[in-house]
């Protein structure tokens, strides 16, 4: 069947080629870069350059750099707090909307989803203004009550960033969960009702188990997203001294590549970051599969 072959090639070919060029090839190239170095010969390194294999040297350099390991621990800590907060909030909002009467539900759902339409950097700019003394009405109101909040201080800045991320994506995650809640057969609730189940029992025994796939999905995407933290700290950086150029692994890699022109080390740092994201995602999936039925 020549026609069938041609069809498969025509339909699948473009996607496969683009996938290879923009996803597979860069991964391969990053791995290659991360195990090689550029060596300059001649006086003052002005002679010819050559690429040499250096094994895991860049990985060792990255992992022995206290600033980089600190940035890794920082995003891990960030994810450990951010992911549960995000998922609990999104699930709670979805369940509340599901329980509320029809009036107003559409309005509230739209309002919660709204921030997803604002680009992350603009959301960061916006919250940056709201964190800045002299500009922020939040700080004004707090000062009326004698409260002195410092959103941009060294101990609070990470959680100020967490607030931006939560604000942006909670509504999106909520929508994914709402979509699954809507697909549950309503008869199920009726049957439970007749059997005398309370509203709380319906939530914990029926709704939560049935929306589990949506919760798992949003959790994995939230883990991958939070580990990549980059735009928010970069935008807030001019406002505070608490964010260093190596505040997150992505910032460190960006800095290594474009400020220090050390692409090889930057590649190693990117690979390490992707590995951390993978380890956490798979660990979570494994945990879920073991406890699930």
């Amino acid at each position, binding site marked *: 069947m020549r026609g069938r072959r041609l069809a498969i090639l025509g339909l699948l070919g473009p*996607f496969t080629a683009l996938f290879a060029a923009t996803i597979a090839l860069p991964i391969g190239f990053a791995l290659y870069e991360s195990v090689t170095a550029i060596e300059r010969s001649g006086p003052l390194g002005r002679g010819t350059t050559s690429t040499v294999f250096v094994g895991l040297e860049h990985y060792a350099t990255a992992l022995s750099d206290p600033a980089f390991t600190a940035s890794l621990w920082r995003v891990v800590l960030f994810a450990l707090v951010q992911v549960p907060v995000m998922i609990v909030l999104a699930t709670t909002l979805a369940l509340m909307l599901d329980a509320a009467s029809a009036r107003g539900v559409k309005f509230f759902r739209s309002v*919660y989803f709204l*921030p997803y339409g604002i*680009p992350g*950097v603009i959301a960061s700019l916006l*919250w*940056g203004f*709201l964190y800045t003394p002299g500009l922020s009405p939040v700080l004004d109101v707090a000062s009326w009550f004698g409260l002195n909040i410092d959103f941009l201080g060294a101990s609070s800045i990470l959680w100020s960033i967490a607030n931006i991320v939560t604000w942006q994506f909670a509504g999106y995650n909520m929508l994914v969960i709402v979509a699954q809640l809507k697909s549950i057969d309503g008869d199920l609730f*009726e049957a439970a009702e007749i059997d005398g189940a309370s509203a709380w029992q319906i939530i914990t025994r029926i709704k939560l188990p049935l929306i589990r796939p949506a919760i798992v999905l949003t959790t994995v995407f939230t883990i991958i997203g939070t580990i990549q933290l980059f735009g928010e700290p970069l935008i807030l950086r001019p406002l505070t001294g608490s964010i260093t150029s190596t505040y997150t692994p992505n910032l460190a890699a960006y800095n290594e590549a474009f400020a220090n022109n050390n692409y090889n080390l930057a*590649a190693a740092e990117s690979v390490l970051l992707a590995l951390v994201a993978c380890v956490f995602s798979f660990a979570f999936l494994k945990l879920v599969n073991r406890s699930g039925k």
Partner: protein
Amino acid sequence: MKNPRTPSAASRVLLTAGLAVAAVYFLFPVYWLVIAATKSTGDLFGSSGLSLSNPQLLTNIRNVFEYNGSIFFRWVGNSLLYSGVGALVATVVSIAAGYCLAKFTFRGRDALFNIFLAGVMIPGTALALPLFLLMSEIGLVNTYWAVLLPSVISPFGAYLGRIYASAAVPDSLLEAARLDGAGEFRIFFTIVLRLMTPAAVTVFLFQFIGIWNNYFLPLVMLSDPDRYPLTLGLVSWQSVSDRHPELYQMTIGGALLSSVPLMIAIVSLQRFWRAGLTEGSVKG
């Protein structure tokens, strides 16, 4: 679907109060943005952020439009180009791939699908640096291609397309069309694409928003402000606003102007997001 239980009045009030508190949290920054966008630079710092003070929204908007030879419009155009073209190509290509993976059997099909699926899990920013290095090898850095090329792929789209095609494209219809002598490409473009429209719209929306909101990729790839998308352009205003205080107002006005159309689109197209999500990712 309706809940059979009618909750007591007290719990209904409590529920609505909870929903309202959440709404205040999500709306507050948007409210502040709208108020701040109407102020002069002086009032921005000199008056309460919660209330209007000598509103001059139109003047501010004109300033944003006219600043630096109307570069704002150029950024809007660039963002529309990157997002529109990128999302359109990504949608057609990935829906075709998803359909092919669902309706044709061939050796290595499942392996290929799993590789594509792994692509969904790759952190986007981990790819940006190696992509930059590859693009500089072939001399495409700081061109439109540098942002467009990586934007025309959507592994999620292929995944959703496969699931959707298995459910929504009947084999009997394909067989009938083949018996009538229609070629495979004609079948795809005239029959399959129409049947898969809901999935295609979802993929398009996700991809459009994804490219529109992307910051890391254009930041790494572009150095010429004439090729910047909106996100990069506005940040470039913000980053020098401590030396040029009038740019605070520009950044705020630009942020409002660029957010409003997208927020309207997001909210009014909600049913498409949900439709695609119910059919696709969640069931899988």
